[in-house]
């Protein structure tokens, strides 16, 4: 075999192997997606939205408490986490810039973005659940807010940075104070990017289970009292899926399907927002 033939041969082998591994990867991933959809579609019906959790064997059982709880917990965490994250990101991009403080905050927040979420859960347990004496929706909300903060901070910082300096200078030249320049010019220029960041941040915390296990805990019945334990789709899914009852497991799949569809749509929406912005 000549040297060239050998090179071509090795090349073919490597190409085949890496195409194969792409195939293996995609196979597993689409297998999971298929199972999710097939089990989800089968398990979903109107009852799920109309009824609360019930003991196994009951006809009229659903996920109403988990759906409402999920909306409340993720919703409030978003309402708190998004403004805080945007303001913190604003500091990094507009005030701190390359200062030592800003760089340290960037680094630490980058690490916290990948830190184990269950640790945040145990932290909130220590500072909220123990003093209060019981689990509560508030504890879950605080845990999710802590997880969301670095994500929003990072995207805001990056997106504001993309706004051209000339725009800021033009506004300053008109005599606008800095906060007005930021709110009326910089935010406007980075609108699409920040929106994408928010959508992806919400998608990320909506799927968190570990930090809710011992903060907001679970509740089989409808509750809107933030001082009490509250059900969420993820924890309910975990409890139902590990139960030995078939109808509970079916509800678990329904919860998995609804949650994944919600998270995937947020991700796709986030991408579309960025794409349409680029298209202009």
């Amino acid at each position, binding site marked *: 075999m000549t040297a060239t033939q050998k090179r071509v041969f090795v090349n073919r082998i490597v190409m085949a192997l890496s195409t194969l591994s792409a195939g293996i990867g995609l196979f597993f991933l689409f297998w999971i997606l298929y199972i999710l959809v097939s089990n989800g579609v089968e398990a979903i019906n109107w009852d799920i939205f109309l009824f609360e959790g019930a003991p196994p064997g009951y006809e009229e059982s659903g996920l109403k408490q988990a759906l409402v709880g999920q909306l409340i917990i993720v919703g409030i965490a978003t309402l708190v986490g998004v403004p805080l994250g945007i*303001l913190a990101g604003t500091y990094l991009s507009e005030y701190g810039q390359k200062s030592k403080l800003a760089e340290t905050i960037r*680094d630490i927040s980058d690490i916290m973005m990948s830190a184990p979420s269950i640790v945040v859960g145990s932290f909130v347990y220590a500072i909220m659940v123990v003093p209060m004496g019981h689990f509560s929706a508030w504890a879950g909300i605080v845990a999710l807010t802590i997880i969301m903060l670095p994500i929003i901070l990072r995207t805001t910082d990056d997106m504001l940075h993309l706004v051209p300096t000339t725009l800021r200078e033009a506004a300053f030249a008109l005599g606008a104070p800095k906060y007005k320049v930021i709110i009326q010019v910089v935010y406007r220029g980075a609108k699409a990017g920040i929106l994408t960041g928010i959508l992806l941040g919400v998608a990320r915390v909506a799927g968190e289970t570990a930090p809710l296990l011992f903060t907001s805990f679970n509740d089989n019945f409808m509750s809107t009292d933030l001082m009490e334990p509250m059900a969420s789709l993820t924890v309910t899914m975990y409890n139902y899926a590990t139960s030995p009852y078939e109808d509970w497991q079916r509800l678990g799949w329904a919860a998995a399907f609804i949650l994944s569809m919600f998270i995937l749509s947020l991700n796709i929406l986030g991408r579309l927002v960025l794409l349409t912005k680029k298209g202009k």
Partner: protein
Amino acid sequence: MTKIIDNIFANSTRLIAITVLFITAWIFTVLFQESLLSMQTFGLDFVTESKWAPNLEKFGAFAAIMGSVISTFLAMVLAVPVAIGVAIFLSEIAHERLKAPVGVSIELLAAIPSVIYGMWGLFYFVPIIRDIFGGIGIGMLTAGIVLAIMILPFMAAVTRDAMNTTPDILKESAYALGGTKWDVIRDIVIPYSKAGIIGALILALGRAIGETMAVTFVMGNVHKVSWDLTQPATSIPVTLANEFTEADTDLYFSSLFELALILLVISFTIISIAKFYFLRRKRSV
């Protein structure tokens, strides 16, 4: 007046930004304080002893720590070659028309919550392992494989991004010299993006070691070190997820907090190495 508002705005953004540092420090402090009791009671035995007996008030974390190490190691061994293959496929081999759809679907799969990977593992993967290897199908091996599958999309996407930073002009020069695709990958793409690829893999490792839900379903939470990988086992996050709501004594709680602290320190270290040594964020200001 505008000056006052300007000041308030600037200072409140700074205050909130500093809160991020404050919360991080607070997490470390609280976990440390809460684990003091366990540290004083067990000392170093906590990490070397594998007997975990809540009824006897004996807590040794060796089994959980080893479980985390072994399951993550297994996952890395399985996922790294496949992820690099996927990344090579996406950045160098795939036809332009395939790149976007395959790339986006891998990114979307990285967004699916890990609890769903765990659920899939429990219902569809555990029976397969049981049929092939015997036992109950729940254990270290299953956890390692499910963890590998869960981390794969993230790992592949970040590795691909690293490879994509190679300038086209470098690759084209090598092709012009008659290089095959593999020649270009081996001699141009990999040397150029080495730091990025290693950083991506270590970052994925840092995520995998703290992953809870994908493994909690399929690990079994048994505090025993066994070289038989088909036996039920435990890891730090699995122990936390299973026992936090069951703990009833101060020492039990304190031991769990020490576990959480150990986990945080380990993953904090790994992620810092990935981020600061290999993936220094480049920014032109």
